[in-house]
């Protein structure tokens, strides 16, 4: 099951929708791992879209499970790469040539969508015009508010900062500028008094 319903939270926390085709002469789809399933749904509901679409697919934990089906969608351009950082130079090149009217669709984990959104907004697409559909892992990209280091794929709360080693509490407070949630020291007042670690969303 690639869908997850996030419980309601504070206003800062991003919320996700279901990708829907929009008017436009070119479409950029960035999908990661199980996000491929959202791309299949999008393609099914919008016949003409793929002829004008560029799919950037990041395999992530899904490997090449979806590769064949994605390649057969008939996208004008189809790229597949192992990780977000591997795909980033291509994404930047695509954005530097892009024209107004480009429609952007993101699907996959929050960490990937957040980072891709940062590239898109820096290139001049308003964040409200970018569609995001969450699929796959609920792991988070967390920033330690103390040392500012980013820890990827955080699945437990609290967790240990991979940079400074502090025990961090997982907040829903999100930064679009950093594409990360905020992690705050959980035992600052009483060092060593760390709550039991639990899976986020369990």
């Amino acid at each position, binding site marked *: 099951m690639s869908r997850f319903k996030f419980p309601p939270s504070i206003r800062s926390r991003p919320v996700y929708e279901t990708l829907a085709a929009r008017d436009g*002469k070119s479409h950029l789809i960035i999908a990661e791992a199980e996000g491929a399933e959202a791309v299949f749904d999008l393609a099914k509901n919008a016949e003409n879209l793929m002829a004008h679409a560029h799919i950037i697919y990041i395999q992530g934990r899904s490997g090449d499970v979806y590769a064949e089906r994605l390649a057969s969608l008939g996208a004008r351009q189809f790229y597949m790469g192992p990780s977000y950082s591997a795909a980033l130079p291509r994404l930047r090149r695509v954005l530097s040539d892009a024209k*107004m009217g480009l429609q952007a669709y993101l699907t996959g984990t929050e960490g990937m969508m957040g980072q891709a959104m940062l590239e898109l907004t820096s290139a001049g697409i308003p964040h409200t015009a970018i569609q995001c559909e969450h699929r796959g892992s609920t792991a988070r990209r967390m920033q330690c508010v103390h040392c500012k280091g980013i820890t990827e794929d955080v699945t437990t709360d609290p967790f240990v900062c991979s940079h400074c080693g502090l025990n961090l509490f997982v907040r829903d407070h999100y930064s679009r500028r950093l594409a990360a949630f905020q992690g705050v020291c959980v035992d600052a007042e009483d060092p060593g008094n760390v709550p039991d670690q639990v899976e986020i969303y369990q």
Partner: protein
Amino acid sequence: MSVGENKIAVTVSDITKITPLVTQFRFVRTDGEALPTFSGGAHTVVEMIDGAETRLNPYSLMSDPMDQTAYMISVRRDDQGRGGSLFMHQKVAVGDEMMISLPVNLFALDLRASKHLMIAGGIGITPFLSQIHELNAIAGTFELHYASQSAELAAFADDLMRRYSGKVHVYFDDLGQKIDLAALLEGQPLGTHVYVCGPKGMIDWVRKTAHDLGWPREAIHYEEFLAPQSGKPFEVTLAASNKVIQVGEHQSLLEAMEAADVDAPYLCRGGACGQCETNVIESDGEIIHRDHWLEDDDKKSGKKIMPCVSRFVGKTLVLDR
């Protein structure tokens, strides 16, 4: 409290005829102090005392926003209008003292844009003049497409072409020239914002074309001041103020409230900003909605009115003001 209440006493220091229809006015502060700076696209509301009648009309500031010595506006003569522009053209002289509001901006540049694409129709050129000053100071990228009836009526076109050659494109209706809008919008690099100021038809055309081409709503900016139109006189009951007022043929509902010393909020006085939105308590008749602020549902409901431009025809209108 009205948002537009803060006023500046100014003296007309210069009047220049720009085209057969457009006249430029220069204002300095009467007390000799520096005027506040503003931001490109801002307007000021000019108070015109014409005998017993007071009109308050908004005009875009066209001077350099950082120039604190003077403000400049340009007024297009409208022979069919309610008389505000004719008053400015015929009765205002150099040395006259007038009251204007502090600048208000409902058409600001979005400085996150990597390029500013400006589309002007006729007198809609004026807000772009201050915006171009602003962009010039920060080395911003812009391109202006300016449509006018004819070369003779294209205010400031020659000056703009000379100063910003290559960035300014003019189109004259009488020569059959027209902006190739779809091609223009399609070729714009990501990060471009489009701004349009001109007649309603032009604004609708640009907004629709950009929308259909997939431009995000946030990248489309427009400004259209609606001048209040004349209409049949009508009577209004102001419930909160406990007053019954008459709105004259050439008076707006907002002006009639002000004439009765009712402190009604306003900002643009042109149906755009939403500041004067007023609840209708009772209505037996038809509200003539002329703003482009209220949603269609609100207009149909008959529960809201924008007194700066809208009117009423019928027996009874009671407002919560």
